[in-house]
């Protein structure tokens, strides 16, 4: 049985070890009375408000509610645990049996992923790039900073160049992809897609450069041999037995994360800046706001008091629901449509209304009637409103 005293011990122990790292007097001497309960010791560099004398910070607490047992619920069954405990940890801990090749992965990618993530994971259509080139080249850009040289390229953050663990990719594909219809891929398909991700990022598994080996098969057994170039690109180190202490130490030093501590009565009040250069929003800035920015409290006159019109025309539905993918793939009026319309419009309508395994959501995620949505389909296929 877990005892509360033990948790108190753990918290106070970390507070003690941290106390030495905090500059004496950093709490100031004029804090409002309701914050006088604050003590150093938050793992993230802040203060905590221990529950003491029926109080935490300014809040009153019923401490009996914390000391008494109020057990509800039941123990999960083995099958229930198996059904939900499917996370994958670093190095592939938790992976199920299975395997898939780069070739198989490419085939699945072309049918279920390319419409959003682009050819070879190049991105576009509002979805992230899965590769922007060989991992090692991408990783070399991580020190790029457009502050020192505004004309330079920025850092290139993608799977191969940036992510510390490949387990993250497997887990996310399994849980979250394809985005409009998640959790529909088999374990073998996820291995194959992950293998394809390794290939387009030119990552290595052991001494095999997967980018040069279409027949490479990724499996539960060799997953741990995936080499992620940016594995050590993160701070503090959270893995291993010192993980928590590393975090505590890291955030106890404000300079590590761009923060500044100062005593209240020593803060700068006059001549605080070494520059008076004003940088303004260029060219009006980003103003593509929906709905358009307004603080008017009059009602639009033409609508007789109705705030917004709800009737949708096909183009508006297209823009709201379809353009994100279809602007770059099977765009309105595109000749690519010939490959689909050849089988008859009824088939196209049926796919559009029911959704497709490739990730097209039913009716594009709109709530239109079938007949209204067919007008949208007509527009996307022909590029014209009839």
């Amino acid at each position, binding site marked *: 049985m877990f005892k509360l005293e033990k948790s108190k011990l753990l918290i106070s122990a970390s507070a003690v070890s941290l106390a030495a790292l905090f500059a004496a007097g950093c709490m100031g001497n004029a804090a409002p009375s309701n*914050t006088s309960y604050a003590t150093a010791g938050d793992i993230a560099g802040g203060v905590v408000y221990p529950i003491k004398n029926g109080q935490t910070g300014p809040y009153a607490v019923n401490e009996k509610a914390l000391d008494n047992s109020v057990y509800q619920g039941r123990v999960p069954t083995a099958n229930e*645990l198996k059904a939900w405990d499917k996370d994958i940890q670093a190095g592939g801990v938790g992976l199920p049996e299975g395997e898939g090749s780069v070739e198989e992965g490419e085939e699945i990618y072309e049918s279920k992923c390319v419409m959003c993530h682009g050819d070879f994971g190049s991105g576009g259509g509002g979805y992230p790039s899965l590769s922007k080139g060989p991992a090692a080249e991408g990783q070399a850009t991580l020190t790029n900073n457009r502050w020192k040289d505004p004309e330079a390229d920025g850092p290139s953050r993608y799977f191969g160049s940036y992510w510390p663990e490949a387990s993250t990719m497997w887990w996310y594909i399994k849980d979250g992809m394809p985005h409009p219809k998640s959790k529909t891929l088999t374990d073998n398909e996820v291995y194959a897609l992950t293998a394809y991700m390794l290939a387009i990022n030119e990552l290595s598994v052991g001494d095999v450069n997967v980018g040069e080996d279409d027949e490479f098969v990724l499996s539960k057994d060799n997953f741990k041999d995936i080499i992620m170039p940016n594995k050590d690109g993160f*701070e503090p180190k959270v893995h291993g037995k010192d993980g928590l202490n590393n975090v505590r130490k890291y955030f106890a030093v404000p300079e*590590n994360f761009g923060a500044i501590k100062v005593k209240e009565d020593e803060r700068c*009040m006059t001549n*605080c800046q070494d520059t*008076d250069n004003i940088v*303004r929003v260029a060219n009006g800035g980003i103003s593509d706001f929906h709905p358009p920015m307004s603080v008017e*409290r009059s*009602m639009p006159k033409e609508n007789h008091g109705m705030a917004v019109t709800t009737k949708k025309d096909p183009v508006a539905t297209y823009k709201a629901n379809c353009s994100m993918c279809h602007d770059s793939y099977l765009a309105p009026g595109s000749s690519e449509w010939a490959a689909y319309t050849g089988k008859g419009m009824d088939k196209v309508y049926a796919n559009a209304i029911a959704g497709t395994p490739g990730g097209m959501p039913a009716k594009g995620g709109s709530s239109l009637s079938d007949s209204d949505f067919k007008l949208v389909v007509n527009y996307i296929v022909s590029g014209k409103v009839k």
Partner: protein
Amino acid sequence: MDNKKSEKDLEVSSRRNFFKKTAVMSAAALAGTTLSASEDDHAIIHHPKWGQTWGDPITKNLYGVPSKYEHNVTRRYTKLLASGNYRASIAVTPIHESEGIITPNGLFFSRSHGGVAHVDPNEFRLMIHGMMKKPIVLTLDQLKRYPSVTRTHFIECPANGGQEWRAPQFNSLQFSKGFMSCAQWTGVYIKTILKDLGLDMEQAKWMLAEGSDNSEMGRTLPIDKVLDDAMIVWGQNGEALRPEQGYPVRLLVPGWEGNLCVKWLKRLEFSNEPWYAKEETSKYTALKPSGKAIQHFYANEVNSTVVKPSPEKPWTDLKAGDVVEIEGLAWSGMGTITKVDLSFDGGNNYVEASLKGLVLPKCWTRWSYLYTIPKDFRHNGKQMILTSRAMDDAGYIQPTVQQEVDVMGVESVYHRNGVESWEVNEKGEVNHVQIRKV
């Protein structure tokens, strides 16, 4: 840095201000009594139609809605942040219209990674397991049987202001700072539930929180926070969470990255190692000029902004001599706001503002400064630039824009808390600016 001297100056100037203000006010009062309006006000002379006809019966709008005239007070989105067909995207809060420290539920910023899930509360289950003697499954009713606590906390997306590392991009308060909201949450401390489960305190160092939504959004929390003030919440401003906020149940991690407050919660698992979920490596990590990125960057640091005036609601109706309240918000995920200072010259010289209302830990805090509008909105001969700077009881103070980018560079996306500046031009229009070397 000669603070004692500046305080004395402040005292003298506030005494002078008092006499000046008194003079202005008497002049205005005098003017009011002697000046007759040129035209009668129609709004006074005639009965309004709402005063001469039946209003709505109480049977209408049994769940109330805002006045139809408030239709522009709404969340907004932009295509720039429209990833995933608006299903991995954000709609932000109109903080230029906010009052007090509570965001109404319908205006609370909305962020999801796989769309807003609509969870059937009858099929809601919460599973807590891993490194404990007695794992547990709870229904919603069972969860709500635990002794509850109610706390007022902000939730802030750590990318709030994250588009503006290199320069200001939005001439808008809603889009510059509206990736956050504040509400009164009701739920149970996780430590209250753990008490009965026999957690192995030697082994359990990290907790995974996982959502049941389309993206199964997950994040890792350190045990320190789990045993301090992390909560599982079902109540928001006195009612059930809205679907956009994770109905029926979300995690609330006071003061820390909004992304850690996992919505549509289904599972908590304990382990001796962290997880490396997608949203704690590929995103929500802050790249520094060294090429190393900060991971597990939990707390939203001390921050503030002027809220009134704003680009959306400027001072174009005010003239020299008018007395106006400059108002703002300050917040810190590290503790409680202790001081807010206000500058009229972009952060070179500061005077202390007053905190007002409730001053709570890890919560929006309102601040106020009464000000007499100078001629052409010029302060000491220069166009006025309003800059606020907050401190918290952990001892942190907001850095200048330059101080922050000198350490963090301009590519880190997350956790930007350098001071915000708002220039008031000669017409009283308000424009977002930054004071920095380049």
